[in-house]
């Protein structure tokens, strides 16, 4: 077993049991005590464990801190390749200098993640995950709306949110939804989310819905509008053909992702 793999395995075991002694580890991983000791030494340097006589104990404070940082940086969101593709297309649609809004939801987080790479950026957002990610771009103008924090998904809504947006105008708004369906149109799970939509529709020139393929043919609690509501829909290649046809015929631009890589085009690295 390589060292890296072994360290990962040891971490896994300690996370599981809370503490462990050297002998058990060496027999579990089938390596000598000496090797295990040097591994543990390294893990202690990383503050992952505290060594004790003949074994190691999980450093719980450290783990808590890590957890907290992860939450802030969106580590709680599961990595999703399909959403990443959507984010890439979305970032192509943003031109220099225009003001955009990034709404709630994990797909919007991926939009923000791609936008970080842009040179100039003016963003208004109610999505705290997005705000944190965007803060990595030091030159960007980021404004976070006020409002009531929705703990579950770290976004802002409520009366204060609505007040802040008075007399603000935006050129493009990127919004996520919970379901997209012929019958229900676009659906979200509660009233507070719908309030955000109603306001954003009012103040933005172009409404862009970002929804990965898993959202299609699904409905949630509240409808926020028919399928023809947005100007643009960004999704994945695998959405049912009937949606592609419907959007095209009804003048909603539909962008879908493909997986052609940069390296498969000659001369591009």
């Amino acid at each position, binding site marked *: 077993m390589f060292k890296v793999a072994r360290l990962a395995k040891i971490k896994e075991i300690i996370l599981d049991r809370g503490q462990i002694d050297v002998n058990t580890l060496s027999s579990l991983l089938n390596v000598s005590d000496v090797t295990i000791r040097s591994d543990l030494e390294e893990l202690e340097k990383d503050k992952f464990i505290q060594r004790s006589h003949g074994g190691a104990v999980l450093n719980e404070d450290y783990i808590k801190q890590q957890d907290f940082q992860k939450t802030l940086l969106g580590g709680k969101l599961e990595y999703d390749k399909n959403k990443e593709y959507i984010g890439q297309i979305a970032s192509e649609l943003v031109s220099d200098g225009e003001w955009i809004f990034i709404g709630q939801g994990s797909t919007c987080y991926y939009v923000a993640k791609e936008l970080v790479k842009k040179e100039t950026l003016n963003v208004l957002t109610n999505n705290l995950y997005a705000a944190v990610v965007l803060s990595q771009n030091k030159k960007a103008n980021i404004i976070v709306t006020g409002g009531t924090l929705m703990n579950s998904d770290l976004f802002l809504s409520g009366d204060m949110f609505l007040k802040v947006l008075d007399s603000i105008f935006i050129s493009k708004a990127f919004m996520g939804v919970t379901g997209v369906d012929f019958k229900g149109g676009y659906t979200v799970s509660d009233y507070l989310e719908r309030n955000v939509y109603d306001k954003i529709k009012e103040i933005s020139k172009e409404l862009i819905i970002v929804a990965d393929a898993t959202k299609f043919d699904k409905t949630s609690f509240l409808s926020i509008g028919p399928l023809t509501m947005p100007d643009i829909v960004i999704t994945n290649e695998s959405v049912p053909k009937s949606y592609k*046809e419907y959007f095209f015929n009804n*003048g909603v*631009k539909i962008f879908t992702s493909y997986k*052609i890589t940069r390296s498969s085009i000659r001369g*591009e690295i």
Partner: protein
Amino acid sequence: MSTAILRLENVSKNFQNVDALSDINVEFHSGNVTALIGGNGAGKSTLIKVISGAFQISQGKIYYNGEEVHFKSPYDSKNFGIIVCSQEIQLFNELTIAENIYLGNETLEKDIFLNLKNTEKKVEEILKKLNMDLDIHRKVKHLSLAEKFLIQFARALLSNPKILIIDELIDILTQIECNMVYEIINELKSKNVAVIFITHKIEEAIKFADNILVMREGRIIETIETKYADKETIKNDILGQDLKEHFPKLTVKKGEELLKITNISNRFLNNISFSLRRGEILGIAGLVGSGRTSLLKAIVGLDKVSNGEIMISSEHKNGKKAKTHSNIGFMSESRDIQGFFPSLSIGQNVTIRNLKKISKYHILNPKLEMMKSKDVLDRIGIKCDCYNGNISFLSGGNRQKILVARNVFSKCNIYVFDEPTKGIDIAGKVEIYNIINELIRRGAGIILVSSDFTELAGMCDRVLVIKKGSMSGELMREEITQASLFTIFSDN
């Protein structure tokens, strides 16, 4: 009015669930000239092919002199005096002019023997009428495209048509030649022949026809008597709603130059120059016979260039001129004939352009082939059985995608599409457009030839206008609309 010589009742035609014609009701009368007008893809050519029996109708009835008929082939309809002069040149290159013209309409002696003297006399008469001073014993292959077209027209005239159908006059004809054709149409009219001609040019329709049929999206939108015809109304009928904004157009930053073409000429082309950059979609608009396909052929190396230079920029940097155009992926208009190896599996069709990639010591590795072709097909959104799958079971959209996959597999950076969405349903079109988006996002350059003006308007950053083998204009993104392109080609 007398009974119509030809009447179509509720005729529909669809291909793989795409409606090419729906609910056509129309009648044609002897001694009457009808102009069939409409944008590209409106269904004009399909209508003609349905009448001539080249296509079988999916629904409806066709009556000839009041009796229902079923034409199984153009040969059937020819026996009723329905003659089509098509836009594509259908001549035998190795036969002489005379033979090409009288083929099928020979003057016979005792019903068997060719009376060459009489036949050739007739041929000469017709050519004289067409102001063509040609040696009728020359082989057709030496003629120009315009001459070939007129030879075809002469052949149609010699068959004594009762209904003469003329598909659009090819772009290469001069004004004088066009007028001559119309004069002959007038003469036929006085001989009680029913004439139907397709055109793009509203003025010509008004000038030479008695009735104008306006087609759009496979339907007859309007039937107008020429005396009441108004140019603007007809134009609006033809164009319909502008769908430019329906297209998923992604504008990406343009990168370095990929291709530079300087003053190329050959027998179809005259002094054409342009360049293509990474991230750009360059459209080429032209009518049939304008040289648009010839231009593509010259670019991709299928046709010789007598003058000028085609430079593939990446190779140019090394000071070497490209011998084979390994950077260019060409996706032909006739996908099935020029694109595929039907006897090979889907996977093999993908890898065929770059076998090096799947071989070791010059020996093909089938396992590797399957793995790699599966990977690239997956990237382009096709789920299929690479190894046992047969191309013929795939839809038009998926076939087009396989051609793209082949070129992606061999790392092309210039993608040349000739009519990329012809015969493909709407969802399939959306997919092709998004694949094009993906290609430019990843740094490719696109050349797109299409006779669908909405498609050009919807997708292109720039459109070059080709007329009679020369570049006659260039439109930028904001200027390209269905209407502006239509106007360029409908006005002289």
